[in-house]
């Protein structure tokens, strides 16, 4: 147990240590400190915790007082906020909002938050719904699944919301499904398009999950149809974010329908979200002889980088994008490189019916309205209708009303909820082309046409 090195200049301290530690269970053990040329090495010592590290720390660079003040401040920084707490009132209907408000993808949630608050102020100014005022409780999901779950639980249990709008992405939407069902609080996701958000893997409906957007299979299907029949493309290449459920699902359904129609897949390239370098993939695409490159990404950044690098490589290929591309920053970054690219979207900020709203929004908030704001508003309109039908903030009644929505006028269009899947029925798909660094509406696809 005690190892004796063959060194001469070793001092030994062998003694009895004081009884400390958890109870008196650790009784007197011998303490061995071996000092080898000033290096402290400790072996089988039952109570050296406060001796080991402090060896070098004894040479203080800062006086005790400074250190003490610093530690007090540090403790306060961590503990003070714990004291804060909120309180609620009675005669209001609370609606929870889960949105990405911070981080790299904050552009998704920020405009939506403002738009929702505007609309709620409007409702309340007009006397509320059935005389009850609406209150929004907004939490950030930080793009983390666990954060979305804690925030949702907090909305349900602590804030006692009647319904929740958001989150925007499928990963969180899927995780929240069991929570919504268990707590019997309806959740209307804005842009979580994965099928498993509202229906589990065995095809059973999550009764409390709804959404305001179309689903991935539908977009994949429509894009494949458009590519094969309208663009006349026969050989497709993909560069797909393999870490995003959204991208992977669109690729899957696109490929399925495209090969069904008779097209072929030249190559399926992948990358991880956060990657910056796509030249290797693009070179392979160029070599594969594909005549169409689909980039199903949920962030405009990847699309912009891919387009710029394709341009640098001299790759001249037809780009096809998805609704995740829709952000004006994309045009600022890679407008010229993406000239002529097609993409699909559920909504378009350029549609004439939204112009009045856009101008008012920009004038008020000094920020452009985004499609994410439109989706959030659609979800809120759906809730307004359901609360009106339910006559109260009762979650179960709201759910029932949502399920039976037929042709209810919402912000962007009339929405009908399919009772068997809880997807909005008849949500049209818009195909746009990028011309002169502008979104240009090409045509509108009606589903199941």
């Amino acid at each position, binding site marked *: 147990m005690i*190892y004796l090195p063959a*060194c001469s200049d070793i001092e030994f301290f062998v003694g009895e240590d004081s009884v*400390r*530690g*958890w*109870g*008196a269970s650790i009784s007197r053990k011998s303490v061995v400190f*071996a000092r*080898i040329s000033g*290096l*402290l*090495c*400790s*072996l*089988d010592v*039952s109570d050296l*915790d*406060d001796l*080991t*590290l*402090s*060896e070098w*720390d004894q040479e203080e660079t*800062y006086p005790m007082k400074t*250190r003490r003040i*610093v*530690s007090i401040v*540090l403790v306060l*920084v*961590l503990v003070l*906020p*714990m004291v*804060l707490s909120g309180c609620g009132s009675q005669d209001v209907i609370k609606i929870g909002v889960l949105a990405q*408000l*911070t981080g790299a993808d904050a552009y998704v949630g920020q405009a939506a938050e403002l738009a929702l608050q505007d609309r709620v102020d409007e409702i309340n100014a007009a006397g509320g719904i059935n005389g009850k005022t609406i209150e929004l409780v907004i939490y*950030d999901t930080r793009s*983390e*699944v*666990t954060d979305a*779950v*804690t*925030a949702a639980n*907090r909305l*349900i*249990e602590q804030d006692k919301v009647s319904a929740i709008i958001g989150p925007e992405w*499928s990963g969180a939407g*899927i*995780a929240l499904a*069991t929570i919504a069902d268990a*707590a019997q609080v309806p959740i209307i996701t804005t842009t979580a398009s994965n099928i*498993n958000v509202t229906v*589990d*893997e*065995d095809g059973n409906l999550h009764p409390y999950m709804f959404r305001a957007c179309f689903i991935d299979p539908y977009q994949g299907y429509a894009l494949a149809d458009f590519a094969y029949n309208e663009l006349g493309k026969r050989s497709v290449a993909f560069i797909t974010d*393999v*870490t995003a*459920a959204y*991208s*992977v699902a669109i690729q899957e359904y696109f490929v399925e329908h495209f090969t069904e129609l008779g097209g072929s897949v030249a190559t399926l390239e992948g990358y*991880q979200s956060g990657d910056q370098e796509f030249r290797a993939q693009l070179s392979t695409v160029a070599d594969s002889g594909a005549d169409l490159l689909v980039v199903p990404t949920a962030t405009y950044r990847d699309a912009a980088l891919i387009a710029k690098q394709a341009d640098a490589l001299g790759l001249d290929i037809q780009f096809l994008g998805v609704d995740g591309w829709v952000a004006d920053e994309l045009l600022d970054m890679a407008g010229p490189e993406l000239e002529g690219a097609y993409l699909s979207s559920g909504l378009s900020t350029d549609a004439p019916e939204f112009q009045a709203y856009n101008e008012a929004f920009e004038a008020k908030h000094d920020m452009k309205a985004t499609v994410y704001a439109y989706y959030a508003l659609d979800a809120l309109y759906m809730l307004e209708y359901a609360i009106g039908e339910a006559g109260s903030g009762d979650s179960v009644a709201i759910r029932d009303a949502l399920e039976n929505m037929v042709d209810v006028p919402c912000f962007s269009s009339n929405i009908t909820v399919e009772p068997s899947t809880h997807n909005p029925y008849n949500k049209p798909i818009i195909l746009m082309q990028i011309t002169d660094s502008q979104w240009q509406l090409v045509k509108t696809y009606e589903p199941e046409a």
Partner: protein
Amino acid sequence: MGYLNTILVLGGIQVIAALGLAILTGYTGLFSMGHSVYMALGGYAAAVLYMELGVPFILALILGALFAGLCSMIIGYPTFRSQLRGDYFAIATLGFAEAVRLVLNNTYKIINGAIGYLGIPKLTSPWLVLIAMLLAFVLAHSFTKSQWGRNCLAVKQDATAAQMMGVNVLKTQMTALFVSAVYCGLAGGLLAFYMAYLTPAMFTVTKSSDLLAAVVFGGMQSLVGPAIAGFVLIALPEILRPLESWRLIMYGSLFVIIMVFRPQGLLGYYELELGRYLAPIRAAYARLGIRRKAKVDAA
């Protein structure tokens, strides 16, 4: 109760994982940047065992944790053997975490890749987490007080000197890594059966730095400190949502400030030792005994 339960469960899970990292970083002096990967491995392994192979829940959790421990050896052996422990190990852990996430994201058989592993039953209860947490704490405490724990401290203090004293440095570091990976694996398993859903996006670098923050804030050579810090850091964003966007700035600055001014962490080197608080009571009791004895003697 649901919200409080969520905080308790997620906080407890974080505590278990933070204890694991405390053994590795706090006690053995190894800096890991990718410890969330062991949570992922433990979580996925436990879920697959339970769902596909019908292994009972608790056994699946334990086997999942052990699987995470075994996986840690893949990077443990080559990096520790090369002796440049700090930097090689840190970057290797980060690389390993990314690599595993890549594989999980692209494995569509059974675990459904990036879309996520669905349909896991919600079996983790607050009580289970509480029991697991206490058990984890007691075991970690005895580990640090055992010969192994002592060896860890010696290696942290000076690996060469420890080696001269006969400590098998490689073995000690491997043991510490194994134990910490098992802890994180257990935490991951509990998380999987609480979220009822697994996706590789749950185990990002952010998760790893949350764990690291718990150890650094809580105390570099303490178990209670990281445990408390881990719990507070989970509960804190809940209470502190308005300051959300400052969180990482605060983390980073605190890392520097703590290292410069108070490297022992907020709670110091010392354990918040029960013994210390029991001591006066014990002393009082002892005096009482003496007095009683005196009374008996007087009688």
